[in-house]
């Protein structure tokens, strides 16, 4: 105990070294965003705002931002809608088998490689895949729907990826709602729907906010899913960054785009967090 007391910085030093290196990396990201790109060379060290101007004034690039945010928003909403019932059942059900199964599923889907899962989705969503097969056999459609390499595919895959996080964010919040509150409401005459709307839902808002935060931030920063499922026809900001850095070797612009993505992420994260705090206080 006294060893710890006498030299805390010693034990923290290796960690700090790593983190300071990381901070330097972020700093260099910032620096590069102000450099100029010249074909043939890597970059020219100057201080210019042309990259930022280019990104923020060209609708082509702004569109990436818009697509990222829009699709992420859709995914978050869908994920919320799908995960709430699961979370509710998980929170209220006493059976450990059910909890165990869902937990295992969540863990395995989290640990399995994204590429593999995307491949499975591409197969499932293909013209001869299970989804089309089901819809055709149920007579809901007459010929296969184009479900791959487009926005739909991206949404499905992202919702899938985000589900475990939203489910568990909500489970925690719902578990904290005392079931006797719902019973009280029902004994006072509220039916199940009204109980849900007036008691459960409002009380679970912290969980909803947490779920939204977690999923939305994960989605807007997503890289592989839009890349693979989108088929190259469109992309998220991360894909733009990749293209600029790896394909064009335009480090300055790529860094600028990264800085913008970082800023948006921080802003939204901070903003929603602040909302949470204010809601909590009131």
């Amino acid at each position: 105990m006294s060893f710890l007391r006498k030299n805390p910085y010693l034990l923290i030093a290796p960690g700090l070294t790593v983190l300071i290196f990381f901070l330097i990396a972020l700093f260099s990201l910032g620096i590069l965003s102000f450099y100029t790109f010249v074909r043939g060379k890597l970059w020219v060290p100057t201080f210019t705002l042309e990259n930022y101007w280019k990104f923020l004034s060209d609708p082509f690039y702004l569109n990436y931002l818009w697509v990222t945010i829009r699709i992420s928003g859709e995914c978050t909403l869908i994920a919320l809608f799908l995960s709430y019932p699961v979370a509710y059942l998980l929170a209220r059900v006493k059976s450990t088998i059910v909890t165990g199964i869902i937990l295992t599923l969540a863990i395995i889907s989290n640990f399995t490689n994204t590429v593999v899962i995307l491949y499975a989705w591409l197969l499932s969503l293909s013209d001869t895949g299970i989804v089309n097969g089901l819809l055709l056999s149920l007579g809901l459609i007459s010929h296969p729907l184009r479900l791959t390499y487009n926005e739909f595919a991206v949404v499905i895959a992202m919702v899938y990826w985000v589900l475990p996080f939203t489910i568990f964010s909500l489970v925690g919040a719902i578990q904290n709602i005392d079931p006797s509150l719902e019973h009280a409401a029902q004994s006072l005459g509220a039916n199940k729907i009204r109980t849900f709307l007036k008691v459960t839902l409002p009380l679970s808002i912290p969980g909803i906010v947490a779920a939204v935060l977690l999923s939305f931030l994960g989605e807007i920063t997503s890289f592989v899913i839009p890349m693979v499922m989108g088929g190259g026809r469109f992309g998220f900001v991360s894909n733009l960054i990749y293209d600029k850095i790896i394909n064009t070797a335009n480090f300055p612009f790529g860094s600028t785009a990264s800085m913008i993505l970082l800023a948006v992420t921080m802003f939204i994260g901070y903003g929603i967090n602040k909302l949470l705090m204010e809601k909590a206080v009131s």
Partner: protein
Amino acid sequence: MIPRLIAAFTVFLLALPLILSVVISFSPGQLTFPLTGFSLRWYEPLFSRRDFASSLGVSLVVGTIASAISLGIGIPASLVLVRQRFKGREVIQVLFLSPLAIPAVVVGVSLLDVFVMVGVSDPLTRLLTGHVIITLPYVVRVISASLEGFDRQVEEAAMNLGADEFRTFQKITLPLMKSAIVAAIIFAFQTSFNDISVSIFLVGTTFTTLPLVLLTWTYKYFDPSIAAASGLIIGSITILLIITEKLVGIDKLMGAFRVVT
């Protein structure tokens, strides 16, 4: 009724790709479901395509070393962060968790930027650094959480009986942190092994990781060999989980999962 339907649908949705990829990996040729037969032919490319073995090796090596480094850094750091009050503690705590707040691509790009500026071109160094940075927060979070609930009196009892700080740490603290350490190892390794967005900026032309190779396979081949790779991985994870369960008890692992998410 409707909520239950939605819930069932969601669970089905969760399970679908997992089951599908395992099933497809055994398909004889037709990519339909249900299978028309049983075959191991798609496991063959795992051996014939050289990039699989080499990238698997890279991922395993980088994952192991990066996790080890993160543990070596993260455990002492967590000890200090949880148990000591010192100047700048809160700031440093946030700092340790900061890589989680940064988009993975941004982590990758920023590291590439600094490596190019400084002149480090070796992919192993680049990858190791990147992977330590992204695994360290998980280690610190899991270990810190376990240390916060730690009953210090057991350590005092040990010291009272004659064990100095080091022996107390070795004989009491560390063994009692076992399940947290296991959880930390699993999360760290998993994060490193499956990483794409950071690694893609740090790999070399021939020195690359398994997920990235699989990524190229979806463009180059797009065949069930990808599913086979996943079959192999899922099989290994299952075995790993069983071993962990025997070692530590699955409820601790579940708890750790919740902490991290």
